[in-house]
């Protein structure tokens, strides 16, 4: 059945993949088979969409779990004017309407708009205009059984942050469910005890957990755990969490006994991570033969813009500039091993290799990948792996120079030695093709270097394709 799906007008690229992922979780649908339709004359970035879902229960579960669905509705009628709406509602089958209009039920009608404000008086007039619907129930504004919504877009030609409206559309429908965004203020970073410079904001962390299909009893791993901001969202949905970081001060000490990764989980009454350890993603300490244990791997790898990655082995050591260093026996216990910069390309290769080995079949890898915005879009711009299929990519613009793309990959095949070799070759090809953007430190300098006035007049392919209204927060 088709439902009207109205989104919050933010993170536009993330809206459909979230619903599609949750449709897989609650409705057993394949992500790519979820059908969408746009209302007539609406731009793809409009908050109004139609989605085909197997049942009302599935639609409700999706909407209530999501973070970007403002509401999922059974559409009773729509039109370009209130006259057309009336006709459309009258034509909607009686047997679909009457059960929700019965005299013992309670209801509420909300008037909402996109791109304009409707005064209280106008709202009342619009509700009174619906008198042709035979409401028998009692009005209850606080806790109604049935919630009806009357939604309209702006008038013809208005520019409400999207391309100008072709025709005004009015929708009337019965609410089935909607996102519980109260979660966001509860988990917002500004009230969290222990924070790092790159803690993931709560809304994005929930989106990542949804993309990863996190549910109760699943085991979720973050190899770059930091202050645990991503695992907190996973734990909120009941997952068992495990995290590793190369910086022992972050995972072990934090800022004291009441301000560390554990205290962050305690703050929200979530169950503690089942494991936190200090380990190097380049040399993961997992036992040989251990495979397919994690249900999902969710992370924000260090891409060298706000925080750089590190791996074992000294910088000079790896270049061969100094002879291998032997730690004297008496200094072994408190020795602090040196680390070297960890390039993004290597980091992502290791992440894919680890995930291919350690994820269950059908398990998901969800991670951010940085993209320079004046970099040409090419087919193979994201890392690939023979064990994985890329099922969603959602861009978030961070500055005029760069954005990050949330990649959702599903493990579709088992990991073998041959596959590992194939992946290594693929990785080398990938590195070759993207040499410019992946070189050590080049992303950082591209993001922070002062602009060159001569260059900035040239064609900027990526930027030109993206609409202007898509600012930092959209």
């Amino acid at each position: 059945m088709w439902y009207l799906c109205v989104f919050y007008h933010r993170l536009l690229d993330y809206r459909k993949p979230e619903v599609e992922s949750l449709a897989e979780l609650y409705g057993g649908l394949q992500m790519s088979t979820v059908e969408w339709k746009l209302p007539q004359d609406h731009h793809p970035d409009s908050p109004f969409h139609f989605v085909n879902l197997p049942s009302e229960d599935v639609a409700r579960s999706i909407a209530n779990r999501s973070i970007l669905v403002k509401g999922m509705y059974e559409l009773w009628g729509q039109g370009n004017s209130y006259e057309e709406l009336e006709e459309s509602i009258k034509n909607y089958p009686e047997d679909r309407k009457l059960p929700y209009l019965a005299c013992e039920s309670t209801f509420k009608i909300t008037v909402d708009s996109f791109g304009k404000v409707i005064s209280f008086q106008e709202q009342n007039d619009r509700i009174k205009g619906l008198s042709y619907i035979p409401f028998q129930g009692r009005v209850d504004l606080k806790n109604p059984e049935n919630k009806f919504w009357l939604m309209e877009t702006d008038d013809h030609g208005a520019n409400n942050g999207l391309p100008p409206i072709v025709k005004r559309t009015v929708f009337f429908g019965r609410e089935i469910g909607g996102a519980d965004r109260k979660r966001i203020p509860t988990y917002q970073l500004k009230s969290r005890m222990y924070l790092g410079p790159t803690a993931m904001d709560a809304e994005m962390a929930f989106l990542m957990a949804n993309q990863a299909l996190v549910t109760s009893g699943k085991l979720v791993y973050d190899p770059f755990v930091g202050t645990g901001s991503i695992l907190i969202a996973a734990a909120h949905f009941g997952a068992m969490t495990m995290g590793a970081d190369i910086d022992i001060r972050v995972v072990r000490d934090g800022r004291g006994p009441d301000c560390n990764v554990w205290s962050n989980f305690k703050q929200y009454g979530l169950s503690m991570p089942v494991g936190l350890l200090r380990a190097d993603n380049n040399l993961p300490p997992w036992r040989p033969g251990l495979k397919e244990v994690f249900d999902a791997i969710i992370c924000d790898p260090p891409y060298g813009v706000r925080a750089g990655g590190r791996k074992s082995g000294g910088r000079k050591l790896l270049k061969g500039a100094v002879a291998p260093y032997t730690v004297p026996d008496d200094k072994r216990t408190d020795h602090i091993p040196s680390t070297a910069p960890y390039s993004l390309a290597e980091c992502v290769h290791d992440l894919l290799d680890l995930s291919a080995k350690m994820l269950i079949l059908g398990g998901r890898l969800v991670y951010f990948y940085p993209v320079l915005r004046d970099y040409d879009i090419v087919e193979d711009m994201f890392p690939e792996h023979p064990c994985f299929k890329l099922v969603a990519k959602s861009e978030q613009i961070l500055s005029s120079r760069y954005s990050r793309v949330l990649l959702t990959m599903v493990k579709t095949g088992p990991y073998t030695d041959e596959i590992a070799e194939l992946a290594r070759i693929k990785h080398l090809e990938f590195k070759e093709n993207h040499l410019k953007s992946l070189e050590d430190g080049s992303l950082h300098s591209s993001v922070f270097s002062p602009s060159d006035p001569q260059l900035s007049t040239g064609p900027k392919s990526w930027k030109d394709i993206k609409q202007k209204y898509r600012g930092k927060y959209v």
Partner: protein
Amino acid sequence: MRLLTHNMLSSKIKGVSNGFPLRIEVEKVIEKQVELNPDFLKNIFPKVDWKALVEAGRTMGFAELPEEADLLMLDSSEFLSKFHHALLELHLEEGALVCPETGRKFPVNKGIPNMLLHEDEV
């Protein structure tokens, strides 16, 4: 560090052919109550190296796990709660994990194992 984590870790020092299981050196063990989740336990059971878990449990002072276990035993709630206790409720707060081949100690402080290798071990 819980025994679930211990069950997954090994020593990856250059030249070590089998760094699993790591021997546990106990300084301080604490118990933390965790809600039992049967689905999770059933999920994770086939992935656990049972012998290593029994041995680790014994080192930590919990000797009630049977030497052998199979999937059928998961239906018994008594077994499930023992398995749960060993896997998730016993914490090595202070101590070390010792590589079975080289004897190298990986310290465990404040419950966090430090698995990072020295320069000459990479």
